[in-house]
Structure formats: C-alpha cells, structure tokens
C-alpha cells in the first residue's frame, strides 16, 4: 500500500515508522525545514520538504497513486483541505485526518472529511471506560450505519439482575452480544442469566440508549 503522511510531528513520524515496518511504502511531507532535517536522518528519502497543502507538493509526493492519505499537521484547516483535495481532486479512496481541536470536528464532518480523529476525544473515551461511575461506555459508534456498541454494568437491584437474556424486555433494535464476568467473557444465548456486576455488551440503534440503560441500571437513581 502506498501511504502519504502530511506532517512529521510526533504523530506523523511514529506513524511513518510503524507503517514502514509493516511493509508499506510511505512518504512523509513536512513544511518546517528544521523538523524535516531531523526526521530525514531516520527516514532518508521517504520524507519530502514542502507545504503539504500546495498541489504541486502533493503531486511531487505521488498523491495520485496514494492508497491512503493521512493528514496529521497541527492545523485543522490544513488537515481538512488536504483530505478534501486528496479525495475530491485526486480520487484517493481512504483518508484519515487528525483533529487538533475537538470543537473543529463539526467542520471535518461538514466538508466530508472522515474519519477525523481527535486525541482529546480518544482520551475522554478511555476515561469513560476506566471510570465505572458513568455506567454506560461507548465502545464503537457507526454513525453512517446508525448503530452503536455500548458496554453497561449490571447494577444490583436492576430489572436485569437474575433474568435470562430473552426475558430482559429489551427494546427492538438492541441485542446483547456478550457478557463479561470474572475476567472472562462469553456470547450469551437467550437462556443465559445476567448477574449483578456483569459487564454487558450490546449493539443498538442510535437513539434508544435511555430505554436500554433503564434495564441495567439501579432503580433508585442517585
């Protein structure tokens, strides 16, 4: 696979290293001369100096034949433009953009640049995952498909405790896909019994979270 990475900061440089080790052909473009020289010592001819938002620089780096373009500069407007041009002008099938300021995510979406990855959002997700008081954890959002995979802890005294999966009374558009218990996990059948303290993974249609949450959370809300 031929991969073009714009921006040789910590993210770009490490991505280049990893992707090269995985036998991809990688070219990095960096616009800061000093940074370019530092990274060039390791990456040799796999890095080019130039402004990766200029068409001729992208063309010199071979954007026309790229299978994947990764825009990881420190400027969101640059990352948006690079991905927009990669996709719409050069027909690159896959792009990945870094979103530095999570408030700019809406601009990436508006201009059709996806996926856009925000480190702040990723860290927030991890915090949600590590801090159980949130109860519900988003594991995966498939926005296009309007599906999500969530994780819920079964609270003591909840409607779900002690019930078989088929008797949980879950709304249409939701499905229990696994139960995590005592450090292990299994795919339940309709007869599997849910216990308090279980972590339950569900796939659901977007928008019915609240109904599902009611089943697994304690009846007495704090």
């Amino acid at each position, binding site marked *: 696979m031929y991969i073009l990475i714009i921006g040789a900061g910590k993210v770009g440089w490490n991505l280049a290293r990893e992707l090269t080790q995985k036998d991809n052909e990688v070219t990095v473009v960096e616009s800061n001369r000093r940074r370019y020289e530092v990274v060039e010592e390791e990456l040799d001819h796999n890095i080019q100096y130039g402004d990766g938002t200029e*068409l001729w620089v992208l063309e010199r780096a071979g954007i026309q034949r790229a299978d994947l373009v990764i825009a990881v500069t420190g400027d969101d*407007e640059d990352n948006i*433009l690079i991905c927009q041009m990669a996709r719409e002008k050069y027909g690159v099938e896959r792009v990945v953009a870094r979103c530095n*300021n999570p408030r700019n995510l809406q601009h990436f979406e508006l201009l059709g640049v996806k996926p856009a990855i925000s480190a702040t959002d990723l860290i927030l997700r991890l915090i949600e995952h590590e801090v159980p008081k949130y109860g519900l954890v988003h594991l995966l959002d498939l926005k296009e498909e309007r599906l999500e995979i969530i994780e819920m802890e079964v609270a003591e005294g909840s409607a779900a405790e002690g019930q078989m999966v088929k008797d949980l009374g879950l709304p249409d558009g939701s499905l229990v896909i696994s139960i995590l218990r005592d450090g292990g996990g299994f795919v339940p059948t309709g007869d599997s019994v849910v216990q308090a303290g279980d972590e339950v993974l569900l796939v659901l249609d977007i928008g019915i979270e609240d109904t599902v949450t009611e089943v697994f959370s304690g009846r007495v809300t704090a």
Partner: protein
Amino acid sequence: MFVLIVGCGRVGSSIAKSMLAEGNQVSVLDENPEAIALLNRGQDENWEDLGGSFTVGTALEIDALLAAGIDQADAFVASTDGDNTNLVIAQIAKRRFEIDRVVVRVLDPGRAKWYSEQGLQTVCPTQTAIELLEAAVRGQIRFEGVSG
C-alpha cells in the same frame, strides 16, 4: 445588505470601509483586537461610531462566527492571511449557513483555481498580478502605477 468580513488586514479592512460607506451593514471578525486600528485609519469617526461592528475571535470558531452575525449575513468575505482558513470558512458559510454570496481570497493560484472549479468564488491576487505584469511586459497594457 449585511456583509460579514473575516480577516481584517489591508484587504478586509478596505472592503469593510467601502461597504459601510455605501450604506451596508458591516461586521468584521479578526483574532487580533488591535486590527480595529485599520478600520479607524483615515476615518473621521471611529469604526463603531460609524455603525460598523467588530468582533474579536478565531475564524474557525462557530461561536465567534455567530457572534459576528454569520447567520444573518447576505455576503461573506474570507480574507484572513491563511489560504486554508479562508477556504474552510468560506465552505462553512456556503454549506452550513447557506450564504449565496461568498468570496474568498486565496494567494496560491493552484488552490484558487481548483476551488473555483468546485463552485467557490475565489480571488487570487497572485494570479491577477502575474497576468497584469505579463501584459505590461509584453507592452499590451500600460499603467502609471497605483496611487493612494
């Protein structure tokens, strides 16, 4: 009409003053609070007394664009010093706020050309200068130079 100008440098401030003098409602957004000096320069009264408005904020921030009145704008000018910023906010103005008359200053002829083919009204001072200078070198046109 209500004109919103984002980026108050030489270009943005000049357009703002002309548009206000022609009787339009004009709002200017710039991240630098000092930029209002360019709007006051050469005027009898200061910008806000003349009826213009000035908002300090970052072009990409929706809150700043809203504070400057983007949801009421009839015309939008993207004239910050960043080509990419201009191209992104112009598309926001067009697609999200559905402003018909959006004009964008883009210094790089390559991006200006491609985005104009995508339906944006881009103005490329670099390209304009190249064409004028070439014509003058060929002797096709003659000008005395710019005054003021």
